[in-house]
């Protein structure tokens, strides 16, 4: 592994980039998940979150907000870029809702560019700005402007500035990109509280791709605001197909 790292750094130097440092990981709270990720969510990287279906958009957005909460220290600014159409069709991003997830809306700056091209331009600026802790880039469908070059540019900028970038994709299918990890998020039935009330937000998450580590793995996690961490959610009776993956991939959680 060391030799591989050294080789990578050499190539980076040849390409005129800074030698890539090993990413700092922010633990998510679920042991098997953190193990599969090599310690948690990598900071200063580009992560892609796909909503499994259009109706899972809020779940994916919530998951992105939770990752942003975990990835950066509490006082650093957070930028959320949303297209104007998304704000209309999917409902406005509600600061009270963010506060209920555990993010302080006072540190949030919401950008509402009119089209994907402007959004990606603004995103390039945001990701290059080091004081920004995390940036959520929400893109609906598959805009032609978001190609491999654009995502590569974002990934490189994130590595250089240290901004954790969460690319939130709604109503889109996973496609090759320069992201460090790629996830598919779906909402899952929550564990009922007393009187059959809906409980803590639960998600089915699917690790589709991971750079430099084995892919694959499915988890069902619950978010607990007070602990600011994910927890394993029990699967009531349902059987999840075993994940294909390497030795470090998580086994089926039950």
């Amino acid at each position: 592994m060391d030799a591989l790292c050294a080789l990578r750094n050499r190539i980076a130097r040849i390409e005129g980039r800074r030698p890539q440092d090993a990413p700092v990981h922010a633990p998510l709270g679920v042991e098997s998940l953190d193990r599969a990720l090599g310690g948690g969510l990598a900071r200063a990287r580009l992560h892609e979150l796909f909503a499994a279906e259009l109706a899972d958009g809020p779940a994916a957005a919530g998951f992105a907000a939770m990752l942003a909460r975990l990835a950066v220290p509490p006082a650093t600014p957070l930028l959320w870029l949303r297209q104007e159409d998304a704000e209309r069709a999917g409902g406005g991003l509600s600061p009270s809702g963010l506060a209920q997830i555990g993010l302080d809306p006072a540190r949030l700056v919401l950008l509402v560019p009119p089209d994907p091209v402007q959004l990606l331009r603004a995103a390039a600026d945001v990701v290059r700005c080091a004081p920004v802790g995390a940036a959520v880039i929400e893109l609906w469908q598959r805009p032609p402007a978001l190609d491999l070059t654009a995502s590569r540019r974002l990934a490189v900028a994130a590595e250089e500035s240290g901004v954790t970038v969460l690319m939130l994709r709604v109503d889109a299918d996973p496609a090759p990109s320069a992201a460090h990890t790629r996830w598919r998020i779906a909402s899952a039935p929550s564990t009922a509280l007393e009187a059959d009330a809906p409980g803590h937000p639960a998600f089915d998450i699917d690790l589709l791709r991971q750079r430099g580590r084995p892919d694959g793995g499915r988890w069902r996690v619950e978010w607990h605001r007070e602990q600011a961490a994910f927890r394993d959610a029990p699967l009531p009776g349902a059987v999840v197909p075993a994940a294909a993956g390497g030795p470090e991939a998580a086994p089926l959680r039950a």
Partner: protein
Amino acid sequence: MRVVALDAAALRLGLAPGLTLADARARVPELAAVDHDPHGDRLWLERIADGCDRWTPMVALDPPDGVTLDITGCVESFTLHTKKSVRPEPVEACPERSRRGLSFSSTVQEERQGPSTPPAASLRTGFDRLSPNGERFDSEALLAADIERRLTAAGLTLRLALADTPEAAQALARFQSLPAADERQAIRRLPIAALRLEEEAETALRRAGLKTLGDLADRPPAPLAARFGEELVAALDRLLGRADSRISPRRALPALLFERRFAEPLARTDDALAVLDDLAREAAVALEERHGGGRRFAGRLYRSDGAVREIAIETGLPTRDPAVPARLFRERIDALADPIDPGFGFDMIRLAVPAIEPLAATQLKLEGGRVAEEAMAALVDRLSIRLGRNRVRRFVAQGTHIPEQQALALPAVDLPDPAPWPQPPAGEPPLRPLHLFDPPQRIAVTMSEVPDGPPLRFRWRRNVHEVARFEGPERIAGEWWRVRVARLPDPPPSVLRQRPGRDAMDCDEEELADPADATPGRPDQPLLTRDYFRVEDVRGRRFWLFRHGLYERETDAPDWYVHGLFA
């Protein structure tokens, strides 16, 4: 159809405004007529007034066809620029001095008639050498000549006059017919129409045999006021300079103003930007002397043909770093929908700082806290300039329990440091949704256990959702103290119309887009109580639904809405 305005040639032929067009055509068959366009005239006058900014910051419109400039204190600066080298100088608001007004009127229609009417200037500044300070009048004439030269080049016919009060200048520009020895005499010779009184008062004066201002000026004011009204005396005093009178300028005077004039116009936008950078450096020096910073910077580019282009930027925190406006001006120009057209070039460029805010010298923190803050503010400024200030938002909590009014999204440049948010109650899952619909979207509830219980099955966006779990109701009542206000106006006609042949279940959010229908507080009815339910369907999607109105007490058939979506 009547004649509204005439050019000098037509006036010489004996035509007068107010004549019917047929009459005028009968007298002068080759008369060329153009439709009267008051709005177009107004815009044109505004453009002329914009261009007049180059001589003085105090410009007022005198509709329909006049512009009045207050050139107090500007003459010296003007002659300095024309006679000596091109040296910028901050022009600051001028305190009390002897005030000088300058007014000109132009017949706007003439400009449109094109080359058929030769631009015949009639400059009337007849009163010379009255003051012992003769030099001042020379330079005033120089200024007037410059105004005339530029506006005549733009195809206007001018009547220009200089006087001690704005009213006198306006009256002289409009009504003076013969040259006079001095300003006083010229005013005394003006007809009483120059007072701009009501028709009745004017007729009364004429009947009394008072035809010129001179006739009025010598009489004691009290009997005049008794017979013809206070207004006459007030107007007379203003005209004769007995009462103080000012123009109200079109724009407020900036705190700091820097300008640069060029003998040869600059033909490239890049050069103009470089000049703006220079001016920003000068502004930085001036701001540092005052221990202040600016939050707005407005650059004005004066084209040699009279057109003016303004580009303005603003920052979240006060700044005096010249690099900040320099960068933001470029950002602004990149974001402009219609690019700047230098035309024949810019011959004057100004930079205004409208207000100075206190800004003490700062010491850098060792750990870089201040630097990070400034970098963040710079990012917000840049994005606000590029995307528009309303597209970069921050949130402020509001003290209300109506969900859609709990947060106010404000432009981030106005709100560099918002207050922390109130903490949600501990030990609960999220009680407020992440995405909130405003207006709420109507759903069709197809099954429920009891009339005022939660829905068991509902249909939203053409999908049926089976409810697995719910919590509620959480009752949010309307704000009763606003009811009375809300009742006052008539209800707007609802745009909700059901298409024939479709039932309520088929209508979706496009047809229900009327906010007045969806939100409480419809003006015609008291605010309805909303019962909110946190609901999770069998696939794990969590919704925030509410029933609008209480059964039987407030409404017979309450509607259901989805107000938000949980993560």
